[in-house]
């Protein structure tokens, strides 16, 4: 059985807001299946006693003191924005039903 189906690839593309043609989906589904198959071999090597790694360093509780440090000026903050107005980032109409 394939590690990832064409439908799952299509759903990922939708979630990532990447428009894909049917041809691209066919192609990518096959390719991703091969990649996942290769990665899955790692799982065969790691025994049950090896927890999934999210952080390579054995560090915990790294905290910063609650101290205010200087922010960017609004000009600096907005300097890379494609559009701005009223000292705010201007974004296109937010379509659909997101919050």
């Amino acid at each position, binding site marked *: 059985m394939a590690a990832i189906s064409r439908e799952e690839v299509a759903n990922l593309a939708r979630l990532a807001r990447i428009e894909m043609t049917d041809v691209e989906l066919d192609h990518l589904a096959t390719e991703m299946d091969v990649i996942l198959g290769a990665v899955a071999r790692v799982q065969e090597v790691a025994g049950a006693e090896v927890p999934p790694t999210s952080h390579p360093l054995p560090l915990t509780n790294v905290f*910063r003191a609650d101290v205010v440090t200087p922010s960017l000026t609004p000009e600096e903050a*907005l300097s890379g924005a494609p559009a701005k107005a009223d000292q705010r980032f201007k974004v296109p*109409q937010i379509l659909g039903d997101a919050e």
Partner: protein
Amino acid sequence: MALNFDQALEKYEPTLGLEVHVELNTHSKMFCGCATEFGAEPNTQTCPVCLGLPGALPAVNGKAIESTILIGLALNCSIAPYSRFARKNYFYPDMPKNFQTSQYDEPICINGYLDVEIDTEEGKKTFRVEIERVHMEEDTGKSLHVGGSTGRIHGAEYSLLDYNRAGIPLVEIVTKMIPGTDKYAPQVARAYVTELRDILRSLGVSDVKMEQGSLRCDANVSLSPRGSGILGTRSETKNVNSLRSVERAIFGEIERQATRLESGERIIQETRHFLEESGLTRAGRSKEQAEDYRYFPEPDLVPVTPSAEWVEELRATLPEKPSTRRKRLQEAWAVPDKEMTSLINAELLDVVEETVNLGADPSKARSWWLGEISRLANEKDVSATSLVTASQVAEIIALISSGELTDKLARQVVEGVVNGEGTPREVIDARGLKVVSDDSALMAAIESAIAAQPDTAERVRGGNIPAAGALIGAVMKATGGQADAAKVRELLLKHLGQA
């Protein structure tokens, strides 16, 4: 046919779920050193970290973790020995990173409860609200939708983003499903949010100002046909920005859902927005399609593993529970239940305590805050505490005790202070509000009153004491209410040989 609340409850049983978001009052943001001041000029409190610029790395604010653990402990939660942050991925410009740093399946605090007490027809009743989790995340930026007719997102031409709020530490407190509240569901919800707010305030971890959004509540409601045991589809109402709104939103949602079910329609799982003016809710985002946020552990932040010692140290600093405090104050002040409820509902307990601490008699402090000051506040549709301060009220009460003011004059002083005429002392001086305590001045007024009503005076001389009322009234009128009525009575009766 539209069902009203009582009809709805005859047929259906409500189940509640409450999600409360609380902004912590740390000086700096959750993952960077930007300030967190409310109401600052747009985009003056941002940096590469909270703007999600390439290469920026977050660092956890230790104070925020401490506050979250305190909240968990105050809510009788277990503190997880191992907890991680996760990325919640979504496309929406309120977070410039395209994800919100939150927690997924490893929250800091789990499995707590909060007992809330409400007044029922059978007397006081305690409901236990079980807490599912308390987790850390960051607040989002503020959007301004421009071009639409209503300022709403639909129909807007574009949106403007201010990221000052993005990255402010936010704690989410989620209850388990709350069954069995029946017709008291709206009150239980309100009591829960109230109690939670009081706890958060006592911990000093948040400003808990619902009107400024530092405490926000989402209310989930579902109905099941009475006795069926089948849980209905839930709706989630957002934008509930006051304690009263929590109660109204649930009341309205129960009526709406019951009406729909009754006419054979189904409940759609969706987000609804509470409308303050009408108390109704409006449909928002449909959640028919399960959301997929592709949560994964945040690789840039290491796990949080609070030691048992740290947790116990924090537990030892927990302040008196608000419910305990209320009981203590009620006993100390000897307040009847009903009046205590009024004080709490009017949110005057803190200010009355402050007034008492400034030396005022507890019963006088209560009656001024609940009486005259609340009346003026209602007239102006503002909160009582915005009109006068505890120290002003304490000063006025002290002036009454010392005989410098009568209750009647004191009301004028309060009115003057409320109208911005200055401190109580300044109002007294400016308006000339002094008790006429000079006996000779009073005697002159008493003699004029007797001269004007010789028959009445004769009856009093003859032993008809109640008749003196008319004369006392005349004296009070002549002195513009600035005399102490008891004093006038005493002098008058003495003058007429009746004392």
